[in-house]
């Protein structure tokens, strides 16, 4: 047996993230003791109508979220307990809502920092209704082998180590969350473990005090002794002592009280718990509590450390008197399935990766490009072209190469609003389309006729140079196999009206002490083609391509330089239109050659 929480306890959790985490811990306990998940519903208005997926073993249980406690208990009439994880400013309303629901008999509030007045009102309301209000600031309640409410008991391994999968003989009541776990562990190591452990919360006026729970333990035949972990402040320990001393009790009472250090510390010092505070007139000191408990006949070890051996003594006496028998441990216990990550770490599974990457890794505290941390690259003076080199070609390019790439990007960042890419982006922007889609609309234009000739130009120039072709051989080869030479020819520019960008780039690259076989070849080709027709000049695509091949970039990456550079311009056009709040545009009729058939009658449908 146990008190407050047992096999028939079913729970609604009021609150958000913290409540979901608690449900996960509760599911681990349910899995350990082989019962189905005891959390049947959540109440969290913002997510009402959705579900939370709670891991249970290797599967997931979908737990519905409702708007109100009444809705939750209407759909799940077995619910008899509520855990409140609502923020301090709204906790009282939530607690009241739960207490006023006829299905609910126990409300445990986990919220910390609840105003004292609110806690008192909740406690009084619960007493009036004959219900239990536990907390605020409660870590939870756990009955070994039957029910866990909240995160009390800690991680799965600790549940097993503390033998919470089966009943023992000791009841535990603590104010402190961390110490509840410690005592549960001590009871399992020095004796046969616990029946029920209750965190009543460290506030000055917990909704339910030691005495109420002592009464419950007294009426639970399985509980043979109760351990109280008290602390200075308030009079709860004194009341417990009064209860214990009032008449002969079936359960043995053991207690420790903290706060003796107060005697040698500044008066009025604030400890971790709100209630841990000596009264204005010295009442509620650790010493007065400890003395009162001793006087009532309770076992009060001098220090926390002495509690374990004291529990052992009590347990041994119980064994000798035949009051309890040595517990039988189950032959095997369910093991919590490991996550893939944990199993891999333990070398227990092998997973075939879905993708493979050779360029970057962001699993540390910052991304590494080809192994180099981004911040180190920045701090050592590297720039964007170097990052391009690392991510596109897996090499740290030289300062000179970086300068060439920078110039290429600057020259091709934009080319006015009329070209296909910019026009695409502008039309989209005027239609109210967002940045990424509008820029994508422009990028879609990049292809064989607009900006997308860099890769092919590079490929063919490289082919010619690698195969030591003459210009004539190359032009014949192209005519026979592929058609016009990519990178040669321009819509508006010509020999007489040269493209300044090409001139600029060629001039710069030729001024450097580097070998440029591709560029040289491309310029020779231009001489021949331009002689045939004025506008068959080396265009900016062809120039970029030849230069980039010369500095070693792989052919397949070459279009990327145009895409990257032009993205700067496309973003600019979108922002520009947005800033002007441009209106939707459409073509004027006079810009269209209507060559469709004249209006005519539709024949009857056959």
């Amino acid at each position, binding site marked *: 047996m146990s008190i407050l929480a047992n096999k028939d306890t079913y729970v609604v959790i009021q609150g958000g993230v913290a409540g979901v985490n608690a449900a996960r*811990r509760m599911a681990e306990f349910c899995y350990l003791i082989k019962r189905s998940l005891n959390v049947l519903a959540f109440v969290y208005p913002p997510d009402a109508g959705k579900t939370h997926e709670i891991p249970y073993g290797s599967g997931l249980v979908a737990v519905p979220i409702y708007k109100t406690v009444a809705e939750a208990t209407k759909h799940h009439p077995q619910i008899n307990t509520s855990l409140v994880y609502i923020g*301090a*400013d709204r906790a009282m309303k939530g607690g009241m809502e739960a207490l006023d629901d006829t299905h609910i008999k126990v409300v445990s509030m986990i919220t*910390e*920092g*609840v*105003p*004292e*007045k*609110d806690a*008192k009102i909740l*406690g*009084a309301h619960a007493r009036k209704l004959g219900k239990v209000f536990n907390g605020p600031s409660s*870590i*939870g309640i756990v009955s070994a082998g039957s029910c866990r409410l909240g*995160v*009390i*008991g*800690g*991680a799965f391994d*600790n549940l097993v180590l503390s033998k919470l999968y089966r009943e023992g003989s000791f009841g535990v009541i603590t*104010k*402190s*969350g*961390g*110490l*509840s*776990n*410690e005592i549960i*562990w001590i009871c399992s190591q020095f004796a046969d473990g616990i029946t029920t452990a209750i965190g009543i919360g*460290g506030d*000055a*006026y917990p909704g339910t*005090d030691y005495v109420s729970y002592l009464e419950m333990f007294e009426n639970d035949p399985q509980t043979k002794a109760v351990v109280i*972990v008290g*602390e200075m402040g*308030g*009079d709860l320990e004194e009341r417990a002592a009064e209860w214990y001393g009032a008449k002969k009790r079936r359960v043995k009472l053991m207690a420790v009280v*903290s*706060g*003796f*250090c107060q*005697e*040698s*510390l*500044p*008066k*009025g*010092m*604030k*400890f*971790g*718990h*709100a209630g*841990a*505070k000596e009264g*204005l007139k010295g009442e509620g000191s650790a010493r007065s509590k400890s003395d009162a408990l001793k006087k009532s006949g309770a076992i009060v070890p001098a*220090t*926390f*450390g002495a509690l374990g051996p004291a529990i052992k003594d009590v347990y041994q006496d119980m064994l000798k008197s035949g009051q309890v028998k040595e517990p039988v441990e189950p032959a095997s216990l369910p093991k919590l399935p490991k996550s893939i990550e944990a199993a891999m770490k333990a070398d227990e599974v092998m997973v075939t990766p879905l993708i493979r990457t050779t360029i970057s890794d962001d699993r540390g505290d910052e991304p590494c490009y080809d192994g180099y941390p981004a911040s180190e690259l920045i701090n050592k003076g590297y720039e964007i072209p170097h990052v391009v080199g690392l991510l596109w070609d897996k090499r740290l390019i030289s300062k000179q190469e970086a300068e060439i790439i920078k110039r290429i990007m600057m020259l091709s960042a934009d080319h006015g609003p009329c070209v296909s890419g910019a026009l695409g982006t502008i039309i989209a922007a005027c239609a109210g389309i967002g940045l990424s889609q509008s820029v994508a609309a422009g990028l879609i234009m990049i292809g064989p006729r607009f900006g997308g000739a860099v890769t092919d130009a590079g490929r063919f120039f490289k082919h010619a140079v690698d195969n030591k072709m003459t210009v004539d051989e190359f032009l014949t080869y192209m005519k026979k196999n592929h058609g016009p030479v990519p990178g040669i020819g321009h819509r508006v520019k010509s020999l007489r009206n040269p493209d300044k960008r090409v001139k600029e780039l060629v001039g710069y690259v030729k001024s450097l002490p580097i070998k440029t076989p591709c560029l040289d070849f491309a310029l020779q080709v231009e001489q021949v083609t331009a002689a045939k027709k004025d506008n068959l000049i080396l265009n900016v695509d062809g120039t970029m391509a030849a230069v980039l091949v010369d500095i070693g970039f792989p052919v397949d990456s070459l279009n990327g330089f145009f895409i990257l550079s032009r993205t700067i311009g496309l973003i600019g056009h979108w922002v520009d239109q947005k800033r002007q709040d441009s209106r939707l545009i459409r073509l004027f009729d006079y810009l269209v050659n209507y060559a469709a058939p004249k209006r005519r009658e539709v024949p009857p449908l056959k």
Partner: protein
Amino acid sequence: MAKVLEGPGMGLMKKWGINVPNYVVVTSVDELTKLGQANEWLKKSKLVAKAHEALGSRFKLGLVKVDLDFKAAEAATKEMIGRQVGSITVTQVIVSEMIPHKEEYYCAVKSTREGSEILVANCGGIEVESNWERVKRLCLEIGQAPSADALEKLSKEAGFTGPLIKKMADFAGKMYGCFDSEDAQYLEVNPVVTRASDGELVALDAVTLLDGDAKFRHPDWNFAFAAEFGRAYSKQEEEVMAVDSKIKGSVKFIEIPGGDTAMLPAGGGASVYYSDAVVARGGKLANYAEYSGDPPDWAVEVLTEKVCSLPGIKNIIVGGAIANFTDVVKTFGGIINGFRKAKSEGKLKGVKIWVRRGGPREKEGLDAMRALKDEGFDISVFDRNTPLTDIVDKALQAK
């Protein structure tokens, strides 16, 4: 609990209809002089000047001056502002109207488990301390306001007679109204006096403790809470408080000058047991500290830096029970970063570190602590199998 100084405390009482003397709180003589031009009562009445700080025994320290005219009040203010008492510098002076009176009474409202209690006595000042049996009480359940009859009965029980019965009952009723509406935990007026001019009861002094947790519903609490142990918070303490107010979970830090055992334990409950163990073994605490509720690692790191910076420490107790949900690896990560930083700044020389902990990911966390040995830290690490406070015994024996 949050203590409120006299000025804002009297402000709250006034808000709920309790008569208080005219008063001003000033930070300089100039301010008082200016106020003197605007407020006639300052020039007309006899005045009391008191240092407006969380200080005990102000009388003995000469920080309360009575029966002053305006000039003398200016002189007293000048003398008090800037005075250093321990760690507190007097920055404010409260100057109030002196109320000539013969009789002194006592009235308080205090929080109890069931609700509250109204305390009334027909003696006041220091007399009530030595005649505590003359204090009469009216116990109230939460949500239950005192009836006029009950208050008059209390007033009679306390020995008030004639028209004072009703006056004291009204006064106590208003005190309850203030207590209940302002989420107070303790209100005390000592003395309550009869103002000779109109025969009304006036609160001459106010002790006000409010529930800091209820601040969210009191937008007009525009005053700072005072430190509760007779000294100002140190810069280090204030920095930790600033972190505490920002995070999920909590970090707490209070310095205790002169100690040599530094505390860095987890848990509001366990931390006190650790402090007890140090005192029980004859050690001297250098601080109180605590982190709990799965705080972020950076917050624990800040706390660690403060602990490592305590002067003259010989041991650091990194204790903790078996955590429920505080991640041991993460929080220890913060502590380890703090230790490394302290060491690189030349701190922690000759300091022994003692660790005991359990909880989620305890093994990894404890292993990480153990590895600090290789970096030259003098650190001893224990797991859940070592009882909670045994590291304190070991630390203090190792001296």
